[in-house]
């Protein structure tokens, strides 16, 4: 108890204010997502009772065994004119649950109420979707609390950087959608400059390390884009299966290139800042260190980070395809065909990102040395 009291006394006013606002936002948002039914136009119902009435084993055309069950659900309407009334729903779910769900008491569902119900009869309806907003808010809070608990100020800055970057991205996409004559690549290039400057300033503060890292990131990203673009041009994009690219409403090649561009940016920034911080660190320890020694140490650091950095991108991209791959395999698609169809774009992204990472090592090194020399000349 005493330590909590001490801790409280040690905190400055700004800290106290910050925690109070944070707690307020936390509680407020939780109350909101648990009571926001009236903000939705479609009817929402909370499941109160479920009963599985029948289960049938089934075998599909590829001899995969599964079981289909039918569930009868009684739910209570949470909004609209019929608020508070019970509604009867029927749900069908499979054991694998690729497209369906097994519901339990407490789940909240978007539903469609059947019209033309006789007076006095029970309401019936069909299930349209699951209400997921409260889980999203909860995980966002866990994310914020974990980052704050471990990272303190840096944690707060990374949360801010994520939010700011997301807003810029959303704004840039709006701009693109409403001005079709502007090219996506151009918008993304401007976006990338903004992302880089904002993220690195937030992560590292206003200093020469950051300036060096910003320049290195931009040079690294644009040169890796150039290499990837040339590689696509030379090979005539042979081997890329754009048909696998989902959610396409726009020219798919530009969307793919823009995604590739943004996707490798974070990793390139990471490499650039690691190079510039460590080289400036060496210089600050020993102001007379030779350029040759700096290059040597910089290359050693670069070798250390190159392998793990390329792996981060590789796993972040390739893992998302696992469910689709399994679905294809289970539907008796040939192995090679499935892999080339579903992984070609992800692998291209991972490889292009890897090229960006590796290129940024020498670029970051020489940019930082340029800044170190400039600083030296001034002193």
């Amino acid at each position, binding site marked *: 108890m005493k330590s909590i009291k001490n801790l409280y006394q040690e905190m400055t006013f700004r800290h106290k204010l910050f925690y109070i606002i944070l707690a307020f936002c936390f509680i407020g948002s939780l109350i909101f997502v648990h009571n926001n039914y009236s903000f939705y136009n479609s009817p929402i119902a909370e499941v109160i009772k479920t009963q599985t009435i029948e289960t049938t084993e089934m075998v599909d055309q590829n001899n995969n065994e599964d079981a289909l069950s039918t569930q009868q659900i009684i739910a209570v309407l949470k909004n609209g004119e019929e608020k508070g009334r019970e509604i009867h729903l029927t749900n069908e779910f499979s054991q*694998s649950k690729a497209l369906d769900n097994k519901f339990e008491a407490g789940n909240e569902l978007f539903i469609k109420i059947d019209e033309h119900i006789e007076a006095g009869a029970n309401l019936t309806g069909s299930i349209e979707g699951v209400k997921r907003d409260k889980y999203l808010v909860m995980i966002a809070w866990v994310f914020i609390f974990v980052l704050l608990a471990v990272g303190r100020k840096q944690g707060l800055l990374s949360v801010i950087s994520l939010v700011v970057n997301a807003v810029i991205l959303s704004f840039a996409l709006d701009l693109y959608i409403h001005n079709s004559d502007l090219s996506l690549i151009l918008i993304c290039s401007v976006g990338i400059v903004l992302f880089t400057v904002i993220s690195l300033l937030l992560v590292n503060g206003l200093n020469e390390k950051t300036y060096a890292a910003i320049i290195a990131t931009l040079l690294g990203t644009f040169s890796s884009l150039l290499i990837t673009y040339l590689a696509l041009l030379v090979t005539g994009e042979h081997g890329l299966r754009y048909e696998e690219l*989902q959610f396409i409403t726009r020219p798919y090649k530009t969307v793919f290139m823009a995604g590739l561009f943004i996707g490798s940016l974070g990793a390139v920034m*990471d490499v650039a800042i690691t190079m510039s911080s460590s080289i400036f660190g060496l210089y600050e320890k020993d102001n007379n260190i030779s350029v040759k020694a700096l290059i040597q140490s910089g290359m050693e650091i670069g070798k250390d980070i190159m392998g793990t950095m390329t792996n981060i991108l590789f796993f972040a991209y390739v893992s998302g395809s696992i469910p689709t791959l399994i679905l294809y395999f289970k539907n008796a698609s040939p192995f090679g065909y499935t892999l080339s169809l579903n992984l070609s774009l992800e692998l291209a992204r991972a490889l292009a990102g890897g090229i960006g990472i590796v290129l940024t090592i020498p670029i970051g090194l020489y940019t930082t040395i340029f800044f170190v020399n400039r600083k030296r000349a001034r002193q």
Partner: protein
Amino acid sequence: MNVLVLLAAILFLLMTWIGGKKGIRSFIALFLNFGVIIVTLFFMNVPDMNSVIITLIACVAISCINLFFINEVNRKTKTAFLSTIITTVILVIFITIITYKAMIQGFGEEETEEMGMFSFYIGIDFVKLAVSVIIMSTIGAITDAAMAISSPMREMHYHHPNISRKELFHFGLSIGRDILGTSTNTLFFAFFGGYLALLIWFKDLSYSLGAIVNSKIFSSEMITICCSAIGVTAVIPVTSWITAYFLVKNNEKS
């Protein structure tokens, strides 16, 4: 010529040029990891196998490749390995709960339009598969962070052998805080880039905010981003503690 082959060749040349032998090892590691994913897929195809457990085993193999093969077997990599495994196991429990609750498994209705000819009743538990996907997307970043913390801690202990366990732990945490911003950024942008098409789709078809937030695809992607950031953050105290514990304990013995 195939684009992927050309890109891989360029990457190989660059890695060899800049990284020398270690660069070649890093390049081979990428292929080994790809191999691990393919083998994992084969096991996931068996209906009675628990894909989360298969994924955990795959994660052990991947950490071995990323830590012991690219670097070498020593105290740094051993503590980083242990920390990776512990963090992943903690994360699995958390991810399982949220995936189960938010029902983000399988495919969204937007994705299934072009898959009409497929049978979706394939007897594989997609909830477990969804958990596996989230863990797999994060494992690279977790091993990276673990290594980035345990390595300078080892140096610190080497230069100051009398440092106390608590001081060493705090040193680890401060290193962790420095890399936190950039590691989370790496993941954010990787996912932003991957989901760009989806974001344009939502905007083009003018989905309402409510429809976006509650859709299966958007939720599952938000949950993946948050879980991976939680993973790279959680590995910081775990690695600091484990490295401090092992380094200082060994010191007391000798």
